[in-house]
């Protein structure tokens, strides 16, 4: 369980990330370069200075990096890649999320060791195109993803052994019986499959499978109790 978020960069992206993850982490620390001008709204968080040529010893001493997630959101993409590679070189297991302008810099960030990259241009463009082409779908997905409605999306692991008795995900009427919709199933190898895909149809439900479900909070909780426990209810 990660308890700290370390955000490298002192800009609008930093502010938006800090605002959105503040409920999730006990500590949020923002790292700024000495040249960054002071910004009032960011000073509400813990702010520390850093240098791109740092050896990161002080970082390791001050923060429990095993329990931290790092966001690299420097506006200069070359500096952002340099920062990512420098952090990865020092900390092999650190979770790093990077920000890139385009696909080219996204690839470079991944090569530099980022676990996840958010390509701003592609993401924004996709959302604009979706908003125009599929307004209802976009609205529904956003309300689920960004919790604007009572609908939630959750990932639930199957812990019960004998609940499904060798049944396949598509055989069960999830929506009628449990009031939830199973969108996809994540297999042991980490790959995620749509519930009606051929791979899922040939894969009986087993302990350890993770279901990605959409539903109302109570229904999800009930479903979690049903399949998440050791015994089938």
């Amino acid at each position, binding site marked *: 369980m990660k308890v700290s978020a370390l955000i490298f960069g002192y800009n609008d992206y930093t502010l938006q990330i800090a605002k959105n993850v503040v409920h999730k982490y006990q500590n949020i620390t923002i790292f700024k370069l000495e040249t960054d001008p002071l910004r009032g709204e960011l000073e509400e968080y813990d702010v520390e200075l850093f240098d791109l040529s740092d050896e990161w010893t002080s970082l390791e001493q001050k923060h429990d990096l095993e329990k931290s997630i790092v*966001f690299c959101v420097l506006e200069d993409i070359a500096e952002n890649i340099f920062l990512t590679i420098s952090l990865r070189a020092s900390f092999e297991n650190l979770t790093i999320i990077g*920000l890139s302008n385009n696909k080219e810099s996204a690839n470079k960030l991944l090569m530099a060791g980022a676990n996840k990259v958010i390509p701003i241009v592609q993401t924004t463009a996709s*959302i604009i195109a979706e*908003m125009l082409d599929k307004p209802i779908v976009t609205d529904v997905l956003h*309300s689920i*993803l960004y919790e604007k409605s009572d609908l939630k999306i959750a990932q639930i692991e199957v812990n019960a052994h004998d609940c499904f008795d060798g049944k396949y995900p598509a055989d069960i009427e999830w929506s009628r019986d449990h009031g939830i919709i199973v969108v996809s199933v994540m297999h042991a190898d980490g790959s*995620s499959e749509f*519930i009606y895909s051929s791979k899922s149809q040939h894969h009986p439900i087993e302990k350890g499978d993770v279901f990605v479900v*959409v539903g109302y909070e109570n229904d999800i909780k009930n479903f979690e109790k049903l399949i998440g426990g050791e015994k089938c209810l």
Partner: protein
Amino acid sequence: MIRSLIIDWAYFLSTSHNYQATKRFFYNLLENDKYRFKKYFDILMITLIMISVVILIREVKSHVNDFLLFFNNFVISIIFLIEYLLRLWVSGSVTEIIIKQNDYDTMLGQDFNLFKATRKVLRAKLSYISSPRAIIDLLAIIPFFHQLRLLRIFILFRVFKLFRYARSFQTFSSVLSTKKFEFLTLGMFASIVIFVSSVLIYVMEANNPDSPIDTLYEAVYWSIVTISTVGYGDMTPVTDEGRLVAMVVITAGIAVLAFTTSLVVSAFTEKLDEIKETKSIDDIRKLKKFYIVCGYDNIAREVVKKLSIKNDIIILDEDSTRAGIAHKDGYKVLNYNPGSVESYKKLHVDMQTQVKAILCLRESDVANVYTSLTVRSINKDVYILSLLMNDINRKKLLFAGVNEILYPKELVGLIAKEFVGKPVAFEAIHGLRSEYSNINIEEIVITERMLSNFALVSELNNIKYRLVLLGVYKNNIKRFYFNPIDSTILEQGDYLVLIGNSVFIQEFEKYLHKSRK
């Protein structure tokens, strides 16, 4: 008495809905290139002209069927006569002139001056009659008087009428007319050379019995053939003096030909962009529905790439480099300033019916606010989506009339939140949204036809198509019903939100459209 009758008649016609509608219809049919039926009329007229010319050629050495001759001499001629009279009718408004004159006279406290009004009407109509196009139209009718055999040659004037119907001819002549002065200079130069050389060759050669040039007419003919660099060789000077003149004329001929070619080429080069632009605007006008993208920065480029798969897109960018990139990318682009009302006037599009949305995608809030305000000043209802680069400008964009704002920095925050919260769910949803995955999430709108077969959710049979029905969006109450129960009633305009293989979704949509009976 007559005066008041004329004024009453003028007012009656100018307020008569039927009269004005009829006149507008004929004006559109004859003169308005944007009118969708004009091209059919033009094709009909071109066909009649071609029939006329074919009959003329056939008639030279063979007998032509009497019916065809009748068709050519009477039917076509009468059609052309009617067309001529209609053009004369729509070439200005007699009633308007009379009403204006009456208003003017009333204002000055005078009686209506019928003489002045008649003079103005005649002047207006005569100015049309004396225009080159109207003269050609009139001459094309003359073969109607087929008894005068000589007049049959006037059928050729019907060919000139083609200029009226084929827009490429009009473009060609308008391009060449930009070099009027140069062509005039060239014409003067060629005329002087032809005149001087004709006289000289006549003086040098006419008295020589061996020379084929005996008359001044032959001398002029020789000069023109030589200066045009055609040089048939049927007449050649035989005296040394005559050959000297020939050398001068040949040299001048090369200059004239080179100058003419370069003039035509330069006229077209200069007008090329304009011609292309006119063509682009014509193409845009024909589109039924499209998006206008203002600005072609990085995000716009990606948006256009995605949207252009299923939609028509028009890009406006005042920066020629960016417009050039958009052009290279293969999109319809105009190097216009999206923040200028003039740009939209030039486009001649109906914002209400043709434009799906205006996308202000410059990565500058100033430019987007300016463009939004410009668009709003033209149309109050068109949907505007704008990028926001700095949150402090959000209110300004809203004030400018933007319907939807997209702030990429906020998006990054929301994505980060979702990713750190539910990484598996996040990946699953993004997998559904990704264009590279086969599994897609789509919306299908319920039509009247679908309703006749599928009134309830239970009748949809989506499971057969391996589709998950995530929910139904009730358009009339703007509410999304997640996982609807079987007895949910479907209504026209509702949306089904489905997840599944994109091919199966398409098949399912076809199945919904098909009658089950």
